[in-house]
Structure formats: C-alpha cells, structure tokens
C-alpha cells in the first residue's frame, strides 16, 4: 500500500512545488495539500484541502484520510507574506502546536518531516565557525522568524518524546536562494545599493531552492530521525557576494543600522529584522557532515554555484567584467612601456 502524505503550506511556492513533485513519486499513493489560502499555481495530482492548521479541523483530515506522513513546510520566514509579524507568529507557532496536537492523536502516523532553518543557531561574535546539529546557539534568537523556528523545534521535540513510534526528521536549511524563489536574502542582493554593517564582513552559507526540494523528498523517503543542517558547501563573504552581484556597497556604522533597517522595512524594500541584521553582521556557517553521512543527501549546488545561479536569473553580475579586464590590461601595457623607457 502506498503512503499518504499531508503537506502544509502548499500555497507557498516552495511547498506547492514540493507537493507536486511528491505526488509523482510512485511510492506515494496520495498527497493532500493544506493551506489557509488556495494555491495560485497548479498543484497537479495533489488534493487540496483548504484548512487552517490553527483549528482542530486538521485532526479530521489527518485521521479521516489515514495520513501516515506529515510534512510541515509552512513555517513562514517573512512577516510581509503573512500580513504582519503577529499574524506570522500566530501561523507559525500556534499553527504548529495545533498540527502537532493532531499528529499526536493520529494512530496511523509514522513520520513527521519539519522544515526548519539554520537561523535557530542565531548569529553572534561568540559563535563557532561551523555549527553542528547538537550545538546550542550562543545567543537564543529573541525575535522574529528565528524565534518562531526555535519554538517550533521545541514543540516538535516534545512530540517525538511523546510518540516514540513516529520518525521525526527536522531539516534546518541555510538561507534560501534561487532563480525563482522570493527569499529575504535574494531581495537583499537585488537592492540597488546594498547596505552592510561598517567594519563587519559576514560569512554566508546558502542553500539552493532545488536542494531544499530534493532534501525534503529524501527526508520523506528515507527513515532517519533527527535534525540535519542542509546547506551548500563553502562560504561567500558578504562583501564578496555584493561585488559579484555588481552592486555598490553602502557600509553603515553599527549604531545606525537598526534605524536604516527600520527605514527599509517600512518602505517594504527588504526585510531587515534584527535577526537578519545579526546574520548580515556576524554571518553563520553550519557543518553538513551529518547531512552527508546519516541522511545521505548530496546538495547539487555549492554556496557559490547557488549564488551564481541566482545572479544569472536576476540578470546581475560583476560590474562590467570586460571593462575591468581591459583596464587592467591597458594599465599593465602602459606601465611596462613606461618602465622600459625610464
């Protein structure tokens, strides 16, 4: 008998694409997509149920449809999408609590996959260079998406304690980037002038959108419990990434950063939440040994390739590379000529 998978957050681009691909998987009999708003994209063979995970209707869906696998992919990163920070928190935290309560009551449930984020590690100057899955953050995220993700993971751990028969897999994805995805870091690099914190250069580790989908697929089919960092190999320095995007840097002294960030946020240009500012100041790296050795996942994009793929799609690139090269060559020829004469 095939498996019945329930996917939350299918109206978001990533959740929808994931559910559609999953429905084509021969091992999967049915995919049920759940979200509060109807999806704009075509979901293919996915059966869509319009339900709010914040109310008990979800229990009926899980038990009534005989769901054996739940993929919780609806944790929202940007407050703008949810219609404000409080609505976002409501959806993320209360929604997860309701969903997990329903999961606990479902006797047929065998597996729970949760999409989380490496933002649960926070970002501070006291961080180790690379976080492994069992390291605790040096500074617990105090607000925003990161705090939601920490709380969600807490509730998920609670469920895995109470239902030891359910395989619980948590995937912590690094900051997402990709050609079609609207991510906060993508919007940041698309700004005409990229503000950074003066005197700091963050290490960025990115995860390509295709690797997000592939890792979720693998987590559904593989049977490995635990938390896994999912990220591309290697890091880019923030200044290096901005140069590659060919954008002018605007370093802002750290005391003015929150004011400028607020300005950008209210103008809806980019999402400069405090935890994103911390990330763009101190950076973060995660160790992916467990992803390779235990989960058996091999990302198709390194951080650099993922970023380049994003740049290609957005039509960004280093500032006139041919011009720079020809200036370099011209200067060299000139100086050599002068030096030989003198």
């Amino acid at each position: 008998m095939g498996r019945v998978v329930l996917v939350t957050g299918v109206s978001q681009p990533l959740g929808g694409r994931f559910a559609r691909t999953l429905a084509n998987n021969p091992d999967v009999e049915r995919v049920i997509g759940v979200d509060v708003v109807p999806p704009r994209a075509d979901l293919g063979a996915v059966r869509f149920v319009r339900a709010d995970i914040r109310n008990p209707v979800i229990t009926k869906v899980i038990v009534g449809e005989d769901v054996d696998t739940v993929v919780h992919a609806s944790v929202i990163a940007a407050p703008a999408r949810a219609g404000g920070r409080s609505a976002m928190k409501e959806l993320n935290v209360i929604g997860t609590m309701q969903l997990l309560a329903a999961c606990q009551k479902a006797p047929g449930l065998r597996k729970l996959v949760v999409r989380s984020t490496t933002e649960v590690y926070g970002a501070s100057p006291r961080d180790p260079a690379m976080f492994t899955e069992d390291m605790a953050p040096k500074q617990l995220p105090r607000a925003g998406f990161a705090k939601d993700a920490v709380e969600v993971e807490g509730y998920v751990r609670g469920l895995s304690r109470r239902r030891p028969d359910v395989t619980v897999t948590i995937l912590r994805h690094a900051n997402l980037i990709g050609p079609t995805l609207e991510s906060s870091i993508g919007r940041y690099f698309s700004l005409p002038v990229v503000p950074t914190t003066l005197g700091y250069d963050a290490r960025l580790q990115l995860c390509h959108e295709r690797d997000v989908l592939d890792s979720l697929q693998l987590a559904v089919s593989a049977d490995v419990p635990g938390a896994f960092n999912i990220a591309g190999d290697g890091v880019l320095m923030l200044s290096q990434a901005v140069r590659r995007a060919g954008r002018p840097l605007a370093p802002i002294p750290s005391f003015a950063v929150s004011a400028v960030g607020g300005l950008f946020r209210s103008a809806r240009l980019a999402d400069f939440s405090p935890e994103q500012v911390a990330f763009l100041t101190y950076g973060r790296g995660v160790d992916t040994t467990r992803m390779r050795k235990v989960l058996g996942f091999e990302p198709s994009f390194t951080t650099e390739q993922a970023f380049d793929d994003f740049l290609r799609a957005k039509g960004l690139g280093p500032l006139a590379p041919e011009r720079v090269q020809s200036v370099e060559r011209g200067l060299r020829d000139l100086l050599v000529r002068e030096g030989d004469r003198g």
Partner: protein
Amino acid sequence: MADAEVIPLGTRGRPGRGTGRRGTPSSAARSLAPKVPPARSGRRVDPPVVPHPRAEELADVPSFDPDALFVERPGGGQGFDVAAAIAAAAREVFGDEWERRLAELLAFGRRRLTGDYTVDEFGFDPELTSTFTMAALRPLAERWFRIDVRGLDNIPDTGGALVVANHSGTVPLDALMTGLVVHDHAQRHLRMLGADLVFRLPFVGQLARRAGATLACTEDAERMLGQGELVGVWPEGFKGIGKPFKERYTLQRFGRGGFVSAALRTRVPIVPCSIVGAEEIYPLVGNLPTLARLLGAPYIPVTPFFPWLGPLGMIPLPSKWLIEFGEPIRTDAYAVDAADEPMTVFNLTDQVRETIQQTLYSLLMQRRNVFF
C-alpha cells in the same frame, strides 16, 4: 651610516647562530653581505609563483586604450607622469621581476573588484593574506623588531600541529609576528585562535577572519586541527597580554587547558613557542579599570608614552625579538580518551607552560640588551 648592517633572520633550528653578536656574523649574514640593500633575509624562500590560471583570459579581451586615461603634456614625448612614476616605483619595490609582479598585482586587484576569489569556511582568504597582510607586517618584523627565529625545524611541514606561545605586549603584535615568521620561514599559514572580543570589534574581527583566525573555542580548534592546519594559540589571553611591565616574562595561568584537550582529541603535536621582546614594545605601567569597564574592554593601557603623546605613543618601542620554537610534544602516545582525564590535561598543560617559561629564561640570558 657607512654601510648597511645586516641582521640575520632565522637559523633553521641551529642554535647559537644569528644572535647578532658583532664580529661573528652568521652564515646568513655573510651570504647576504654583498647585496645592497638587502631588503630581506636570504633565508626567506619566496613561495613558487604560480601564474593565476585566469591571467591568460586577458589575451582575448580587446585592449583598453590607456592614452585616454592620461592627459599628455603639451610638450609631447614626455610620457605620462603618473604612469612613469608608478612604473618606477614598481621597479624600485619589486626589483628585476617587476613586470611579472606588477601584472600579478593588477590581476589581484581585478579579482578583488569582481569578488573572484575563495575563502575557506572560517573566512580565511589566503591570497589576500599572502599578498597584502604579510607584506604590510614584514617591514615591522624585519626592520623594526629584527626578529631572530630559532627552531623552525620543529614546525611540521604538513599535518595538524598546535603552536602554543606566551602572550605579551599590550597589543597582540606577538601573534601577528609569529604568524609572519611561520609564513615566511616555514611556508605555512598559522591559523590563530582569538578571543571573542576580537570578533566583536569592527574592522579587527573582519581582518582577523580574513587572515585565518577564528574564535578560541573547542569546536573551532578541533575542527581546524582535524583538517590538518597549523593552529596558533596564546592561552594566557588577556591576563598575559595586559599584565604590568614589572611582571614581564612570568607566565600567567594557561587558561583551563582547553588547548591541550583539543590537541589530545585530534592527536596532533604541541609546539611550544617562546617569544622574547614583545614585553618591551609597550611597557604597561598603569591601567584605567573604570574606563575599561565603561568601554567593555579588558584594560585601557597606560604606558610611559601613551596616552601622553597621543598617536605618537602608539608607536611600539623597537625592542629586539627572539622567537624560538621548541621541540614538539607528541600527544599520539596518550590514550584515546586522555582528553577526558583532567589530571592528564593538567599535567600536559604544566609541561608546556614550564617548557616555555624555561626557554624564555634562557633566551633572556642570551639577549644582551633589550634593544640590540
């Protein structure tokens, strides 16, 4: 001054050489003597220059007309002042190979502008460090502190090793100088472990990461050592670097021995390193603890010249430096779980500390004078 005095650098582990005694110039000094001016010690081996693979790309690019950049003088035929000056300066700085070196420098600039370089997971930028940071520090080490290096053979050529050194001098110049000496003489990058204050400070933290440093914590130390890097640690920390001048050359507590457990866990040798001379660069005669607390700094130094002379007081005194790398202490003979036995860790910590302290005393006996 009639002729330039040649100060030998580095003895490749042979004791008694290059101590700067007049009348008995070391072999390094003799071989250097005819070359005037001897910019650097002949012992320093320039790393083989590998042309950047992308240098050839330039051939395909249509040439940019440089004449458009500079306005020709009305007289004509005089050449371009700026270009000529740069070319002359390049010849002066780079010597005979100036054309190649200049081309490399320009290519380096282009890669910086377009972000076309790679850093490792700790944020280490080897190209920038070798091209820029080390070049900036070199005159300070060779002309100002005239560092005399001993025991370079004790630094393994490959594989992980932990260099443990004493810390002093109010400003961590000793760490930078050790890094330079290792880079120039042992052709390896010394990956330093720094306090979290370093990474909290703007600019300093950024430069430190670029130069290969990372936070002094067990996770990072073990990760680096496990990857076969040469890691440098100054376990006295702020207690060592900020101690009063009257306590010079007395080692402080060596942290909690975390560096020993890291070496035991990764089974790499510990290379004790003794640095003489750094204590005298900024003699710390006082401290402003209230101001320090206010600013969140571990101490605010008062030296005979700082803050009295303002920026002038920030010039380090030109003391004569000796850096000696001692015989490596092997950790692979210990049991696998030795890192979890506090007594083994304490004893090994003491052994490293004693070795460095004894070497410091014997180096001080050999040094004739603080400044020569």
